[in-house]
């Protein structure tokens, strides 16, 4: 494995974006970052700016309002970049599916690399999703 690929698997920095969910997944993601689960063990940091981040963690269904903004955040991230859809809403739209104001899951708009199901998913599940994404980066 070459140096740069090793570096990429060891420090995926995430940016968190809520497209219009109920905040449940956001609380679980925050729990994954705080002392009890401590994602920094794997070199994962939460960044504020999309320019610094490698992984876009999206929670919530894509609403008509947020679609352009989501795409814009994604386009501001530097290559190579990845997307994780966290929670059932982000995967398919779940209870909001076919609502008048909702497009559906994230994969309608962006290429998604990993799905973490659950309503909301446990912090362990989110960590598992990120580790699967890292496995995927290794195989690229």
């Amino acid at each position, binding site marked *: 494995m070459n*140096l*740069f690929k*090793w*570096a*990429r698997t*060891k*420090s995926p920095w995430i940016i968190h974006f809520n497209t219009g969910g109920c905040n449940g997944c956001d609380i679980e993601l925050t729990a994954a970052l705080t*002392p009890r689960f*401590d994602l*920094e*063990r*794997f*070199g994962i940091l939460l*960044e*504020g*700016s999309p*320019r*610094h981040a*490698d992984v876009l963690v999206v929670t919530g269904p894509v609403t008509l309002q947020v679609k352009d903004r989501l795409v814009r955040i994604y386009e*501001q991230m*530097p*290559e*190579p970049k990845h997307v994780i859809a966290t929670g059932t809403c982000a995967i398919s739209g779940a209870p909001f599916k076919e609502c008048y104001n909702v497009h559906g899951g994230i994969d309608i708009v962006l290429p998604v690399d990993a799905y973490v199901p659950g309503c909301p998913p446990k912090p362990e599940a989110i960590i598992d999703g990120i580790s699967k994404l890292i496995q995927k980066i290794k195989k690229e």
Partner: protein
Amino acid sequence: MGLDYAAVEKEVCKKMTAETIVSMIRILVFPGALFLFTLAFFYEWVDRKFFARLQNRYGPLHTGPHGILQPIADFFKLLSKEDITPHASDKLVFILAPIFYFALPLTTLFVIPILSQTSLISFEGDLIFVIFAFTLIIITVFLAGWSSINRFSTIGSMRAAVQMLGYEIPMGLVMVGPAIAAGSLSISRIVEWQSLNFWLILLQPLGFAVFTVCLLAELQFVPFDIPEAETEIVAGWRTEFSGRKLALLRLGRDLELVLASALITSLYLGGSQQFWLIPPIVIFLVKTTFAVMLLSLLRAVFARFRIDQMLSGMWKYLLPLAALQIILIQLGLGG
């Protein structure tokens, strides 16, 4: 006169090349650039790990033994990423600012004695040069934020410039304290004086405290991380930097941490002095690690001030304390 000019010239050339090679190695490898990069990455790890332990976390754990390679992994990952220059930015300044931000602390570290009691470059007045370099670093920060033409960067860079007005004067005043005690404006002489007398932390504890607080502001560590307050203005003045430029900015920040801890060590903790059989470099590393841990302890136990609280606090409390320290030295206490 049968002097063999060719032979003399050859001899001189040989000596010159040997000297040049030695000084090149000293500047580029040990204790110069390469050693300082390693030290910068190591101290970022010490800082992050200690900070995490204070928060009851583990910190970086799976990158190398106990996560010691984490800063290196971050650096190489950022090097391999796409380097975006925003269309609206002032391109020349935007490209040059990270280079300056990384080169300034590196250059300044050459005047600090690491290997023995004299530094790589030592002249009368290098303490003034260090104060000047600290100001230049903040001006680079201001230019970096200003050239990105981003509303968050602009706010961050303005805050950095305003913050500088607060801590610059107490820091300059307090750095004169060791110079008065040692009777010299050269850092190497101050270290030498401390090895013959007392450590200056014992003579000027007030100065040490004020200097540490000012260094927290200089490094933009937590009580004074106002220019890059993540919860308010995204990432402050570095919002628009990505890829290679961000890697240089992070390395520059780490070198600044090395510079700050080396200054605390040299001015107040006796610097790199021989102790019994232990070589000065080991003593220096132990002391600077202690200084880094002190800075991250303060980073962990405080919460962020507002910019106006920071400014008024600096002018109301820190500046009189710094002046008091100088007055005490003039009265014969601690000098």
